[in-house]
């Protein structure tokens, strides 16, 4: 096992930042901690590295309790948001720093540094000082420096946030390649969900000092369990719904969101959690809405298009029906609209809707109470 965090609590000036937080990062896993700014992500990394002392709880690295170990005794690499390169040392000396500090002999250092310079493609720039490097080159130096002493795990605190878009994508790809080559356990903090989706083996969503959901990216994005996770990962359409009738495979709901002025009936696939409840929170991923000029039958709504925002290869389309806003993401090629006041059909299958159970279960999707009939109450 890589890193285990057990019941960590941390407050600053009587303000709780982390509350009874537990987390397991598997060996060789690329684990991303995703959450909004100011939710304690960096504090959590600081606690793992030994830079911050928790008020309560334990940290285990490779099954060893390291609470009382100073940062230099933990064998954990750390990549900081602002690179934190040593300004008076060259790229080569920055990478060699950890090796020299650990008393490794000169010949070995030359070999190791050459290997990591090659890994991060900085052989040509080994004599440069940090102020002579671009943001991406600095970050690659910081990654090589943190990896050179072969740490048990690598912690990365929003390492790409200071880079421009192109550089960010380039380093992101390189990071994936480096992780595959070194098989190092990575715990990576970010507030950017697209970055998390591109990098992670598993994602933990941190909210108000707690982990709200730990899942593979696909499951986090398409099966969020709470309204917060749904909205944070971009599944903007979250409804309060009142159960009307169960029709076997499908269940009919009346939407009762406060902004709704009329009555809207939708059909969802029947989930075990629907049993015995009249109120339900449902989530509809914007990508699962089809925008069309004709009705598709069930779950088809004629909406007034109020906003169209181009975003890369897609449009983010907002439609309104009876005061309720629905957001869809459609490929640019599949969407043609002449005016923002035009009406279109928003259609989605009953399978596109899923319940936000809000439970803090850690089971895989197939094992979840909300999905599996054997847990039916």
């Amino acid at each position: 096992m890589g890193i285990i965090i057990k019941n960590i609590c941390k407050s600053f000036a009587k303000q709780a930042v982390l509350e009874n937080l537990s987390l397991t990062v598997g060996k060789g896993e690329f684990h991303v901690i995703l959450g909004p700014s100011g939710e304690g992500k960096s504090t959590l990394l600081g606690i793992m590295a030994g830079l911050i002392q928790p008020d309560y709880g334990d940290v285990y690295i490779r099954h060893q309790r390291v609470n009382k170990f100073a940062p230099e005794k933990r064998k954990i690499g750390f990549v900081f948001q602002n690179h934190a390169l040593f300004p008076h040392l060259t790229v080569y000396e920055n990478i060699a720093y950890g090796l020299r500090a650990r008393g490794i002999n000169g010949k070995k250092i030359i070999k190791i540094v050459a290997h990591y310079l090659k890994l991060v493609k900085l052989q040509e720039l080994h004599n440069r000082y940090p102020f002579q490097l671009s943001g991406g080159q600095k970050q690659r130096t910081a990654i090589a420096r943190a990896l050179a002493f072969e740490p048990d795990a690598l912690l990365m605190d929003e390492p790409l946030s200071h880079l421009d878009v192109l550089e960010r994508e380039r380093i992101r790809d390189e990071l994936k390649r480096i992780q595959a080559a070194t098989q190092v356990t990575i715990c990576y903090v970010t507030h950017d969900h697209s970055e998390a989706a591109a990098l992670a083996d598993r994602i933990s969503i941190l909210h108000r000092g707690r982990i709200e959901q730990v899942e593979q990216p696909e499951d986090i994005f398409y099966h969020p369990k709470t309204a917060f996770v749904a909205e944070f990962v971009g599944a903007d359409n979250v409804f309060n719904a009142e159960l009307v009738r169960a029709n076997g495979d499908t269940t009919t709901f009346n939407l009762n969101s406060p902004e709704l002025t009329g009555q809207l009936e939708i059909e969802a696939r029947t989930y075990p959690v629907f049993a015995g409840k009249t109120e339900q929170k449902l989530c509809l991923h914007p990508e699962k809405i089809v925008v069309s000029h004709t009705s598709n039958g069930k779950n088809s709504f004629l909406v007034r298009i109020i906003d169209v925002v181009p975003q890369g290869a897609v449009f983010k389309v907002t439609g309104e029906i009876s005061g309720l806003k629905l957001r869809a993401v459609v490929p640019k090629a599949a969407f043609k609209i002449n005016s923002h006041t035009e009406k279109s059909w928003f259609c989605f299958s009953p399978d596109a809707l899923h319940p936000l159970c809000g439970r803090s279960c850690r089971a895989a999707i197939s094992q979840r109470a909300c999905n599996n009939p054997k847990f039916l109450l």
Partner: protein
Amino acid sequence: MDKSPKVDQMETKQFTLFDILLTLLTVIFFAFIILVFLMLFTAVSANQLLRQLSSPLVLASIRISLQTSLIVVCLTFFFGFPVAYLLSLKTFKGREFLDSLIDLPIVLPPLVSGLALLILFGGDGMIGKILGHWDIRIIFSQKGIICAQLFVSAPFFIKTVKESIAAIPKEIIAASATLGASSFYTFRRLILPLSKNGILAGLAMTWTRAMGEFGATSMVAGCIPGQTETMTIGIYMNAMSGNLEAAVAVGIILLGFSFISLLILKIRFKRSYGYHY
């Protein structure tokens, strides 16, 4: 590399009435400063200056000043650096109090500092009594000069170095720890080189201040010609006894010394890296 335009590279070419007023006041201020210095040079001829500089008493005062101030610089480094390090990097109870205490010798009138030192090291003083058992005499000796100069000038070093260490980003020090470096290794490989300019600037300021010390030194060491008469005390004694020629000669040397050391500081010890890490 940072390609964005720097604010300090932008120039404003238009002068407003406010700018003209500021310029006028600046000119008056500098005229005053330059006039004061010029007067010193007009008071003696080159021949008089050379004659005074070869006088044994003037030479002795220069020797005593250089000797004591250089010892003070060494002592300041060895005692002051740990203080600056602890005050800038460690958090502990009473840190604020100690920090304020460092400022006290800077704002305290040197005569009051001298008086306190006189009481402490005098024959009946707390330390004076103890040292008396081993026949060590601080008052009216060069040791007294060193004590007075150390008390008055060491805070300049501590303050400069403290600010220099505190300016090192905390992430850099944290990065060093996560890379496996011990506190001493971090000190040797990071803190020392990154605060080098602050250390050198602090030492230069301490030296300049020690050379120019008068109030506390005269209280503790008196003014025994050839023994405890430093350059500043020599200037005072000569000026009071009407020997303006000798006073001005030593004054010019001190002025030159101060000016050159400040100039070297400005040119040589500009921060070279910034923290573009």
